[in-house]
């Protein structure tokens, strides 16, 4: 075989290979660009943070966040355990169905009436009074009438024939009704 014949055969083989591969190369550029477009950009944390804050904040998002914060605060107040305060809340409660006005008087108020409330009208009148540790004499006034025997009292005294309830608040003698 002559040299020029070999060269002709090689050229023909290469041409055939190029023609066969060219079918696979069709649209290669487009496919590469598409693949690059699909690939997420890997940005640094700071860039991502900056981008997040660069976006305009919709008003509803701000309002929603405020609401969530307030709701969380309210729920937290209701459910979170609290440290024992120096002034413990003490519940004063009396059943007085049909009464028009109920109050509690005692050492803690210098015997000034503190009104109890019955918002649902079931005849159970209540008040929560914060008290520091101590011994407290008290009584209820139901429509102005002295009611000195509170079932929740720790002890009773009789003053000029009228009962006065006594409650100890604080320490191991803490009020059992609170």
């Amino acid at each position, binding site marked *: 075989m002559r040299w020029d014949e070999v060269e002709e055969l090689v050229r023909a083989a290469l041409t055939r290979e190029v023609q066969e591969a060219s079918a696979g190369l069709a649209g290669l550029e487009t496919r590469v660009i598409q693949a690059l477009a699909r690939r997420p950009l890997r940005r640094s944390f700071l860039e991502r943070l900056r981008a997040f804050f660069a976006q305009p904040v919709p008003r509803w998002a701000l*309002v929603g966040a*405020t*609401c969530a914060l*307030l*709701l969380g*605060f*309210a*729920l937290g*107040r*209701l459910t979170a355990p609290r440290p024992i305060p120096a002034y413990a*809340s003490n519940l004063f409660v009396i059943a007085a169905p049909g009464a028009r006005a109920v109050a509690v*008087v005692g*050492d*803690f*108020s*210098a*015997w*000034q009436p*503190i*009104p109890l*409330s019955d918002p649902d009208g079931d005849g159970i009148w209540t*008040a*929560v*009074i*914060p*008290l*520091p*540790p*101590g*011994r*407290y*004499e008290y009584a209820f006034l139901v429509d102005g009438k*002295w009611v000195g025997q509170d079932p929740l009292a*720790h002890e009773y*005294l*009789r*003053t*000029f024939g*009228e009962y*006065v309830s006594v409650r*100890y*608040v*604080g*320490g*191991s*003698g*803490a009020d059992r009704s609170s």
Partner: protein
Amino acid sequence: MRIALLSLVAVVALAQPVVVPTIPCPTPEEVLQFLAGMNLSPEFRGALASVLAAGLATGRATPTVSLLLLRDLSSLPREAAERLLEPIRFALAQGFIVDTGLTGSSMMNEVRKLLVLGRRPEEIEGVLKTRLAMLLATRSVLTRYGLVHAPPLPPDKPLPPEERFVLEVAWGVSDFLLWEGGTLTDPRLRTFVQTRLNQLCAVGVLSAEQCSWSATALTLEMFQEIGRLAFQPERR
């Protein structure tokens, strides 16, 4: 949206327990100013003002209860008001606590209680005189037994912590005799006073040292002696 926000704020506010507001606290100057305007004799008013000012400054009285009491008594005739204030003035002059504020029983709070109960001034005066006699007798007996070391101090001197112990023992003995119908020979006297003091220890009103005295040093005989001294002041 505004309504929703206001509703949420309301929810937050209502989440707190409904607590009755505390009694407003006046200043000592307001108390003394009110006393200066009361219908009392100038001599008595001056004597009371000086000891009350000192007592308010040293914790033997509090502005809140003092002012409420003076307001109550201002509606009484002058003689009646002076008769009710005299035991308090005398007790203050002797350095006793006459008002523990809103945290317990004392002479001033007792007057307010008895007024709410509708008792006559003469009856209240009798109770106050008994309380005063008990205070004097208690201090005397506890000093004799070595449980109170400090001598009686005038009201302008700092309040010794022992005075609260004197007050509570005196109050316990007199409650037993006044309101429980007890007598000095009744063995329940010791139990009554001891139980009271134990409770006061449990809630932290009395100091550890005072609780120790209460548990070990106080006897029925001491309480009986307090009662005898109170009703026979010549032995004091």
